């Protein structure tokens, strides 16, 4: 239905290996504007590596990565920083800067990346913290004083602070209790999806994946083995997807005990 539009983010035949270990073996993936795509897959299937390639933290060995139709695979320096301004990311462990108070964490991208004056950035930070359900009293605390769930919320506030066009979520619910996980899912929907931001998430939490996505792709052994709308995922006859979403030990996916 949206075939004619330029995808917001597109991966074409992306390959990445570390030494002898092939992590990404030709990933083809397209995310349309305002789409929420969740990439599912077991641990160690290269989900994080894929995101790091898009962000430019890692450079793919082969293939292209396009953002708004522009090839960004080998951009460096200033032009890379310009592209990065479109992105934001919520890290698995929140990755808050422990040397800075909460508000400065949230305002970091505004102050450093966008040159917003500190006073103004601070007001925006408090406002974004409110959006994720945190009061202004939290703003002066240090990240170490917060619980895991609250750190995730601050991480989310930091991700949405500079109004990015694309947000990446790395295991947004991992390590949280089921209730907090659902709170985070709801926050992702209310702060991101409802605003029309394009998102790419990676997770192995199927409850979260179903809730926050409209499209799902499955990564296995460095390749996308299935991609489709979230509502179709239960009807697919793909054996990989079937095994994964039902969490069966038996099936085509063999757990590799050795990395």
């Amino acid at each position, binding site marked *: 239905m949206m075939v004619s539009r330029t995808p917001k983010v597109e991966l074409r035949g992306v390959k990445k290996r570390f030494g002898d270990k092939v992590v990404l073996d030709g990933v083809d993936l397209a995310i349309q504007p305002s789409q929420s795509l969740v990439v599912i897959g077991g641990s160690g299937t290269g989900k994080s590596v894929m995101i*790091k390639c898009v*962000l*430019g*933290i890692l450079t793919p060995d082969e293939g292209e990565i396009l953002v708004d139709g522009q090839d960004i695979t080998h951009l460096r320096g200033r032009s890379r*920083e310009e592209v*990065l*301004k479109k*992105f*934001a*990311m919520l*890290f*698995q*462990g929140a*990755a*808050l*800067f*422990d040397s800075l108070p909460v508000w400065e964490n949230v305002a*970091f*991208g505004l102050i*450093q*990346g*966008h040159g917003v004056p500190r006073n103004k950035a601070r007001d925006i930070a408090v406002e974004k913290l409110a959006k994720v359900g945190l009061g202004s009293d939290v703003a002066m605390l240090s990240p170490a004083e917060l619980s895991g769930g609250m750190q995730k919320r601050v991480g989310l506030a*930091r991700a949405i602070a*500079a109004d990015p066009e694309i947000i*990446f979520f790395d295991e947004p619910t991992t390590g949280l209790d089921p209730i907090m996980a659902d709170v985070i899912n709801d926050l992702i929907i209310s702060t991101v999806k409802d605003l029309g931001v394009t998102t790419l998430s990676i997770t192995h939490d199927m409850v979260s994946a179903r809730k926050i996505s409209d499209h799902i792709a499955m990564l296995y052994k460095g390749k996308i083995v299935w991609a489709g709308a979230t509502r179709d995922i239960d009807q697919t006859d793909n054996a990989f997807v079937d095994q994964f979403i039902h969490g069966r030990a038996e099936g085509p996916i063999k757990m590799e005990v050795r990395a």
Partner: protein
Amino acid sequence: MNAFAAIGRVTLSFFRETGRLTLFASNSVSGVVRPPVYWWLIAQQMMRIGYYSLPVVGLTAFFTGGVLALQIYNGASRYGAESFVPVVVLVGITRELGPVIAGLMVAGRVAAAIAAEIGTMRVTEQIDALTTLSTNPIKYLVVPRLVAAVISMPILVAIADSIGVFGGYVASTQSLGFNGSVYMNNTMNGLTWDDVSSGLIKAAVFGFLIALMGCYNGFHSRGGAQGVGSATTNAVVTASILILAANYLLTNLLFTK
């Protein structure tokens, strides 16, 4: 067969590591001249690297100066050359012991702290987070530490030189029966700018090596707490070795003409 493979592996990893370090160093140095410059972070790091190292460096310099006086007296008195003690202490401290002792102490204190801090930021993905917030981690983390160390170390060594000479004075007047004002006079007459400046040049180079090894090892640490631990150890060991090696090269360069 196996022996060749082992030699090959060691050689390859040596060149890989050297290449990676060179690349890291050149990226960092080129980051110094390109904006943005984080003045506040440089000031903060000068406080941590320079100011907070003062007690440690001062104490070691004091005792080193003292011991130097005692030993030189011991040797010189065999030839009746006791009067040379002040000048030899001065030259020894300003040329060699001031910068080297301060360098090694700061390597232990600062390279370890830098590697642990940046290493923890690496394994908790804080460095990746910097990238996603359009901030170059090299410019934000490495450059301020490098600049601060290169500025702080000469200042630190200048202070260490004074305290070291004072340590020699105290040992000479208290234990060796030197006359205080004669000792001071001899020291002042023996003072040359070349001796002091060569020590300060060394100090700046040592500062660069300390910050570079701390940052480099921290940046490339992996695998959680254990990885950060070994990065910290490596930072101190490599910084210390490089300081001693660079000291030899610099001495060769500065004094053999």
